[in-house]
């Protein structure tokens, strides 16, 4: 069988196709079909010839095979130093092999490569900082994922995820109506506690355009409400676009570069339409990487920048605290041992290590912060990055990967983990469920709302009418 009904080389482009694939519970038939999916060897080789440029060729050919990258990879360490988890090995035994054989690889090889690409690397880029040649295995894994995706060898959930972006321009089936209704509903819900609070949609020339992660409107609409409350307290002139509000990219995890482009263009179109002074994204780490760090290249912007300055939520919070737009009530600061999870995507890939620490200096009572080792740019991935969290097939491997973060957290003795990145948050939630170490975990927004000083004029008027 060259291509299956569920598992094939066609990207998902319609709602029906999405629903059909979703109906295949846990991708049972999908993976069955994958076992006889044919590799289009010619296409594989020709796309390598077109897209593999000197940087990656050089990385592959000059790798000194020194193994300095081994210890830098948390997956190598947590898997009992299994040599097959050495970053250099992972890429040379997959991408390197495909190239050596000029694309002449079989089905079993591709399925093995899929397993390596999605369950042995979270694209955290940590190894890049430890290699004498500056070889970034995470980037090459991303490239390998693209090749595998184009041949239909992609985990079921990510095929769906990329399809969601193609059909809905969101990682979940949230339509424009769903989204704007959620905004209205959340604004209404807050009216009693926050008179005058709004979630303005499509306001032109605002100071801030806010974008988020589709999971928020879909599953945690409170997150959107919390963003609104904090902007309200800070007195910001802000808006959300009715279209182009979704900032994440499961397509990036899937290696579906075309869908990545479609997704990010949608956000950039909103920026160009509404002309905000700048854009602020939510706390999600990979969303930031997709739309701000990588996105400009997908969209073909030669300066590597989105159409307007686009900052991560951590940057906005730090700035709001620094300038006094948000003031913290010192009596409400965190007074339990607390640690901070640095998200690879905006620490190693956007330089926000110190910015995050600045926030902590406002919200944590001195003496209660327990840093993880290593931390900041040298932190380890939470264990669920690069799509790992969402792939049922690789759940056992993912659970093993969580041990790194579990042990790091345990070593700090912290009771609370602050984790702005949604994906890290999920991983930490899962590790608590899996290993029960007795910790709490939180995004920034709910913590801030608990301790921020609310200006008198924003407080609800007393019901007795004497205020």
């Amino acid at each position: 069988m060259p291509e299956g009904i569920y598992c094939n080389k066609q990207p998902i482009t319609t709602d029906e196709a999405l629903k059909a694939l979703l109906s295949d519970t846990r991708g049972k038939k999908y993976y069955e079909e994958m076992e006889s999916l044919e590799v289009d060897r010619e296409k594989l080789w020709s796309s390598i010839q077109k897209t593999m440029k000197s940087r990656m060729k050089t990385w592959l050919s000059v790798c000194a095979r020194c193994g300095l990258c081994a210890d830098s990879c948390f997956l190598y360490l947590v898997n009992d130093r299994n040599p097959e988890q050495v970053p250099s090995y992972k890429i040379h035994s997959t991408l390197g092999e495909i190239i050596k054989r000029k694309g002449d690889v079989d089905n079993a090889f591709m399925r093995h490569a899929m397993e390596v690409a999605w369950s042995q690397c979270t694209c955290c880029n940590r190894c890049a900082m430890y290699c004498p040649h500056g070889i970034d295995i995470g980037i090459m894994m991303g490239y390998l994922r693209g090749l595998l995706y184009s041949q239909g060898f992609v985990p079921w959930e990510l095929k769906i995820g990329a399809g969601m972006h193609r059909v809905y321009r969101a990682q979940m089936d949230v339509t424009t109506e769903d989204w704007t209704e959620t905004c209205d509903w959340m604004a209404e819900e807050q009216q009693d506690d926050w008179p005058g609070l709004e979630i303005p949609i499509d306001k032109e020339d605002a100071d801030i355009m806010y974008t988020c992660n589709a999971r928020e409107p879909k599953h945690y609409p409170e997150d959107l409400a919390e963003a609104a409350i904090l902007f309200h307290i800070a007195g910001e002139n802000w808006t959300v676009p009715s279209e182009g509000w979704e900032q994440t990219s499961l397509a990036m995890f899937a290696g579906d570069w075309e869908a990545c482009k479609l997704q990010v263009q949608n956000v950039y179109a909103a920026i160009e339409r509404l002309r905000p002074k700048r854009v602020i994204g939510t706390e999600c780490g990979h969303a930031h990487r997709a739309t701000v760090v990588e996105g400009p290249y997908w969209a073909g912007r030669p300066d590597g920048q989105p159409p307007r300055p686009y900052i991560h939520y951590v940057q906005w919070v730090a700035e709001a605290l620094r300038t006094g737009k948000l003031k913290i009530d010192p009596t409400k600061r965190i007074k339990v041992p607390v640690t901070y999870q640095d998200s690879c995507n905006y620490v190693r890939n956007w330089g926000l290590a110190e910015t995050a620490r600045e926030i902590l200096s406002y919200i944590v009572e001195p003496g209660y912060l327990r840093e993880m080792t290593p931390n900041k740019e040298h932190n380890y991935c939470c264990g669920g990055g690069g799509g790992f969290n969402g792939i049922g097939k690789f759940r056992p491997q993912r659970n093993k990967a969580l041990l790194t973060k579990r042990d790091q957290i345990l070593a700090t003795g912290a009771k609370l983990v602050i984790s702005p990145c949604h994906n890290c948050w999920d991983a930490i939630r899962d590790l608590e469920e899996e290993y029960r170490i007795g910790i709490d975990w939180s995004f920034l927004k709910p913590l801030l709302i608990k301790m921020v000083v609310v200006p008198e004029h924003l407080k609800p008027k007393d019901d007795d009418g004497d205020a």
Partner: protein
Amino acid sequence: MFAFLTGPMLWLSFAIFVIGCAWRVVKYVRGLDWQLDRVPYGYYRELAVKGALKSIFHWLTPYGSRSWRLKPLYTAAFFLLHVGLVIVPLFLFAHVMLVSERFGLSWPTLPAGLADALTVLAMAAGVFILLRRFALPEVRIITTAHDLWVMAISLAPLLTGFVAAHQSGDHSGWLLAHIVTGEIWLIAIPFTKLSHVVLFFCSRAQIGVDFGVKRGGQRGRGIVW
């Protein structure tokens, strides 16, 4: 024979080395693609240069990167080997004399004792790196025959040169072997992994620009990649 090896063959070796290396660099630069690589090479000139130089500098400085500091022994071996292969031949009395006899150019030379010591240390470092390859499972698994050849090609001129220098009488077989292995080494550089002689600078500059401009370098802190 001797005349050929020290005459036309030497010239040819140097020519292949220089042109080959230049070709590798040209090909590297021409094969960069800002969109596929997702790095804005042409923009932010100042940040880019800063990122590139910083990256190169910290990795050429012994213990200048976190990775070097975490692997003190390997780092020592790495630098000793490279000093022996790059610095010693350039400042070796015998080599400088040859150049000055032929071209009248000359520059300071290393004291013989120091040159000897560095050569021995470099060979020891090479052997250490080889043994490490087999001793550590994480390095063994990625080791290929190519890596062994490259090391053999690199150590051969050191060994033969050292013995030749300590033999009495000239035109000995060792001197001949030294010249031949040196020429093989030069010719191998552009065609093997030894091309890192130049590609190291390309790839380090590239990642320096990548991190320095795009991935966080604009937001201040002194991160070293």
